[in-house]
């Protein structure tokens, strides 16, 4: 994932989009800047209404920004209609033309570009092979299953070799098994074609499995951009930590003991932190800490750690989730893998301690 030399595929500079006017105005996108690299699988992740689809539509040219500019490989796109942008879209509903055959659908973009008929036919065959739908050229979209329609939509959008492919929650209509298949398929297509993919989803798992980088969005703003590992392991904001995966939040104040950063938690116990820049942060500053359930460990009450009481124990086959309560009532979840079978010693009401390694603790900005 090294830095690619060259101009970014997409660059957004302080983009804002306001829908409506006056008191009813909705700021769907609020001063968003981002850079998407060439040949990257980039995901915009966030809950519905966070502005991710609006950002995608601004890149595609279906909406014009209220403020700011979009650049494609250094060239300004603002004001250009969608049909003048070498960017294609896979729509959430696929939007296949029902009156055209699969082959005609795939050839549509090439036809609009004025490619001769022989080239179009050859390209359609090539695209059908790419999405593994050989022999389907003469079917109508209505005769295909949802997954096959999805592949046709991909083939149609990729046929004219766009610089960037936009994907607007394309997998949301598929069932779970098909969705998993298509996730792998999409990643393969992106690698094979070398086209920059900008993928919109509200499904954090989808984002983590496919993306090179993820932008987490909320309320029209980008909260954090990073690789899946960075986003999951080192969330900077409470929203990011909460939205992606499960997280325990601990409130406390920062102090220093023996030259190391220590958090004085609300439950009255201390937690040693590490990481650079924590020593100089001064005493008594309020802080929120995030700990992933799988990064904490339950130890016997005579061990080192935060005292807690076991609540519900949920056995899930490969692992078990323990819902614990700290001394001040803060809930804390620990998930541990069942390496040696189910642990039967941890019944509801048992007093235990939670051991959290300093590296497992993430300090949040808010």
């Amino acid at each position: 994932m090294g830095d690619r030399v060259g101009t970014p595929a997409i660059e957004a500079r302080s983009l804002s989009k306001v829908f409506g006017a006056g008191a009813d105005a909705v700021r769907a996108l609020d001063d968003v800047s981002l850079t998407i690299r060439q040949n990257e699988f980039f995901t915009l992740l966030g809950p519905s209404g966070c502005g991710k689809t609006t950002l995608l539509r601004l890149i595609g040219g279906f909406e014009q920004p209220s403020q700011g500019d979009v650049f494609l490989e250094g060239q300004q796109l603002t004001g250009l209609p969608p049909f003048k942008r070498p960017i294609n879209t896979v729509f959430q509903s696929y939007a296949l033309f029902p009156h055209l055959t699969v082959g005609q659908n795939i050839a549509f973009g090439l036809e609009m570009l004025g490619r001769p008929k022989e080239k179009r036919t050859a390209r359609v065959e090539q695209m059908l092979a790419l999405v593994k739908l050989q022999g389907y050229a003469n079917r109508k979209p209505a005769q295909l299953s949802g997954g096959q329609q999805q592949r046709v939509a991909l083939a149609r959008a990729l046929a004219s070799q766009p610089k960037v492919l936009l994907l607007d929650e394309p997998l949301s209509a598929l069932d779970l098994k098909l969705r998993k298949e298509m996730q792998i398929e999409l990643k393969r297509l992106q690698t094979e074609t070398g086209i920059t993919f900008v993928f919109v989803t509200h499904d954090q798992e989808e984002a983590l499995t496919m993306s090179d980088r993820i932008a987490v969005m909320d309320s029209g703003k980008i909260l954090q951009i990073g690789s899946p590992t960075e986003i999951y392991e080192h969330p900077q904001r409470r929203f990011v930590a909460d939205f992606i995966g499960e997280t325990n939040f601990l409130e406390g104040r920062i102090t220093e003991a023996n030259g190391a950063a220590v958090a004085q938690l609300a439950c009255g116990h201390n937690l040693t932190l590490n990481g650079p820049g924590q020593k100089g942060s001064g005493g008594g500053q309020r802080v929120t800490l995030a700990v992933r359930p799988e990064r904490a460990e339950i130890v016997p009450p005579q061990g080192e750690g935060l005292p807690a009481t076991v609540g519900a124990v949920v056995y899930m086959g490969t692992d078990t989730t323990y819902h614990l309560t700290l001394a001040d009532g803060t809930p804390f979840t620990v998930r541990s893998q069942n390496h040696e079978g189910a642990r039967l010693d941890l019944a509801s009401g048992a007093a235990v301690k939670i051991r959290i390694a300093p590296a497992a603790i993430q300090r949040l900005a808010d």
Partner: protein
Amino acid sequence: MTGSATSKRFLQIAPALAIIGFFMLAPLGLMAYVSILEKGLNGGVVWDLHTSEAYVNFIFERDLDDSLILNTDYLQIFARSFGLSLLTAALALAIGFPTALYMSMQPEGRRNLLIFLVTIPFWTNLLVRNYAWILLLRNGGLVENLLHWLGIAADQPLGLLYTPYAVSIGLTYSYLPFMVLPIYASLEKLDSRLIEAAFDLGADRRRALLRVILPLAAPGIAAGCVLVFVPALGAYVTPELLGGGKSMMIGNLIQSQFGAARNWPFGAALAFALLTIVLLAMMVYLIRFRRAPAGGH
């Protein structure tokens, strides 16, 4: 199936059958019968004299020595009716499609208002509306003054009224809602994301219209054309008022046979000829635009 189930079914559809039988089949049968009767001297028919004279009269004239001579007068009226009706359908399509397209692109509240406005002319009697067109089209009328003022036409009476064009304008006006509404219905169902997809794939507005919007609106366009063409073919009031008797159409011919000419069998035969032609046109429409069964080949 048991006998009682069959009769129960029959009872359930009996009201519909009665309405179709009483209001459609019986009058049609009566008219078919009239068309093969001898005409009475003072109108009406002689009920026990059967002849195919009415159908012969449509194409041939009987000479004094009883030999048949080809007479194209009636065929010409049919041809004119077809020409004017086609022109009317074409004009209604040219005006109706952009109107329907515009309506379908409006926000929902305004769309309902526009549909309401399209149907407003129906509230006024057709006769009154056609008289209004006489005032508009006559020499010194509003249309002529407007054309003079715009400098499109020379500053002299244009004689717009009592021409086939006046008839076509009047018919277009009368039947325009029948064009707008079915096209609007098909455009409203059209998924706007398909148009976005066309733009996305490089189609400009014109090609998005030609390649995506028009083909998907085709059933509505065909329905609109049939709904305008068929009643225009049988129109009576408009050619009478705006054509001034000079542009006789089938409707006027049939009326004159039952009226002044006192030739009921011939009037009935003409009506049947018209019906046959309309049915053929409908069959062409049905064959051309029959929806493929879902998932079929």
